[in-house]
């Protein structure tokens, strides 16, 4: 599979969405709505659930299953209110000592006049900073598209896992191609250069685990993933210097030369 084949697979509307993972892996989910500031953004769902009997906070970017739902959910492109709702639920999780499980699936943060007016950049920035200091374990699982800052705003976590056909990129291959080659049709070429596949992210250390898609969406698939997430949360809960390690996790990213003067 080429990188662009992965992009197409990640975008496929037949893939399970966040609500399928929540239904498949967790029990007794209670959805909680709203950012307490302006509105409820349905591009992000979140709430309380049990993971193998343990109370957790679960948050996911939701693309929706059919055209009507997809429109209601802005095709999984969150507005500032979505990010603020997510942050509210994360702070709530911290207060009640619940771990946070996040599902990431977005082509990017919503692009629009209202989103800019209400501080899309500020909302993402606040999440990055607050997640870095959140005193509870966080695991982010990329289940489809991971579009730039709009994905990162739910992924400043202790662990980042990616499904084998999920992608994570600083810019869409089409956007990159139209800047680089003045032609969006060159997206497949750009996709290769951007190193956006799960395997690439793993090689760069940005994802800790690549999840096999064998049996994707089946009860066995969810059951296996549930066990893995529960096990990892157990490890993170026993980690004493969690926040220091999280900082160092991101601190290490970047490659540069340091010339000796």
């Amino acid at each position, binding site marked *: 599979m080429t990188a662009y084949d992965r992009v197409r697979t990640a975008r496929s509307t037949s893939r399970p969405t966040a609500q399928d993972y929540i239904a498949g892996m967790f029990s007794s989910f209670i959805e909680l709505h709203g950012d307490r500031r302006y509105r409820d953004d349905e591009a992000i769902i979140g709430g309380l659930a049990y993971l193998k009997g343990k109370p957790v906070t679960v948050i996911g970017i939701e693309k929706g299953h059919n055209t009507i739902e997809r429109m209601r959910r802005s095709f999984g492109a969150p507005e500032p209110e979505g990010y603020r709702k997510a942050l509210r639920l994360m702070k709530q999780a911290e207060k009640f000592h619940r771990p946070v499980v996040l599902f990431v699936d977005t082509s990017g*943060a919503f*692009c*629009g*006049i209202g*989103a*800019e*007016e*209400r*501080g*899309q*950049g*500020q909302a*993402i*920035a*606040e999440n*990055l*900073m607050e997640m*870095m*200091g959140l005193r509870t374990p966080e695991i982010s699982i990329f289940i489809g598209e991971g579009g*730039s*800052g709009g994905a*990162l*705003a739910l992924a*400043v976590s202790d662990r980042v896992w990616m499904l084998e056909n999920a992608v*994570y*990129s*600083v*810019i869409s291959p089409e956007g*990159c191609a139209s*800047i*680089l080659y003045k032609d969006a049709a060159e997206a497949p070429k750009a996709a290769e*250069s*951007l*190193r*956006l596949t799960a395997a*690439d*992210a793993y090689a*760069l250390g*940005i994802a800790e685990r690549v999840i096999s898609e064998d049996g994707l969406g089946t009860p066995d698939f969810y059951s296996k993933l549930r066990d893995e997430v529960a096990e990892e949360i157990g490890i993170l809960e026993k980690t004493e210097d969690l926040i220091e390690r*999280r*900082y160092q996790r*991101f*601190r290490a*990213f*970047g*490659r*540069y*030369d*340091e*010339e*000796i*003067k």
Partner: protein
Amino acid sequence: MSILKFLYKPQNELEKEGRNAEPPAGETEYTCPNCHRTLVESVLEAQNWVCICGHHFRIGARKRISMMTDEGSFEELFSTIVTDDPLAFPGYQKKLTKAREQSGENESVITGTAMIGGIKTALFVMSPFFMMGSMGSATGEKITRIFEYAAEHSLPVVGWTVSGGARMQEGLLSLMQMAKTSGAVLRHSQKGLLYITVLTDPTTGGVTASFAMEGDIIVAEPGATVGFAGRRVVEQTTMESLPRDFQTSEFILEHGFADIIVQRSNEKKLLSSLLAFHGGNHDSL
């Protein structure tokens, strides 16, 4: 434009010179993108690179440092950190070479310490002339280090932002700089130290969505473009015509995302006052 011209009346000798005088031999002329006046370098220099119409020209990082800090007080740090094309991205080496030639810098940000109004501060200054201030690994590393340095030495940080966003030629590594710098800002903040951002033209994309919007106090220069998604992208996506002041400093002030807009001529004075408020200094009046 005709209305602008009609409203314009020369206010002082300097302005007259800016409009009418023949450029002295060898001086570079600049056309104001706002009012289309032609201005010579020495006039712009004397006016802090602000046109008579109020347009704030983009300026390089070194020029800004000399304008905003006490003379001779700047000490550069981390200047040896440079990008090394980590993904072997097509055309990136060539772009870097060109950016280095054009800007005379080896990265899109300069970091160091200086005195501003007699108060020692750590600072970072981004440059519009180096790949439009795009953020790569080295940019993020330098900004992270200056926050770590400031936290260690109990210094405030003043940062001037200019950026087209994350540097796509470094792929995910550039995206990660948003999280990395945000972590460094948080740690500095948790020590009770002050961070002031000055948003300058243009501040967009991944820089807006990270350290530009994380200041305790957010200052903006007049008329600067400040936003997350690019104006053209918003236009194409929404197919709506955008308000004229969309994504300007004035627009973000109105919507509550900046504290204060300051003319460049008053900028150093404002920063000095803000630093003094947090440095235990008493009002000099």
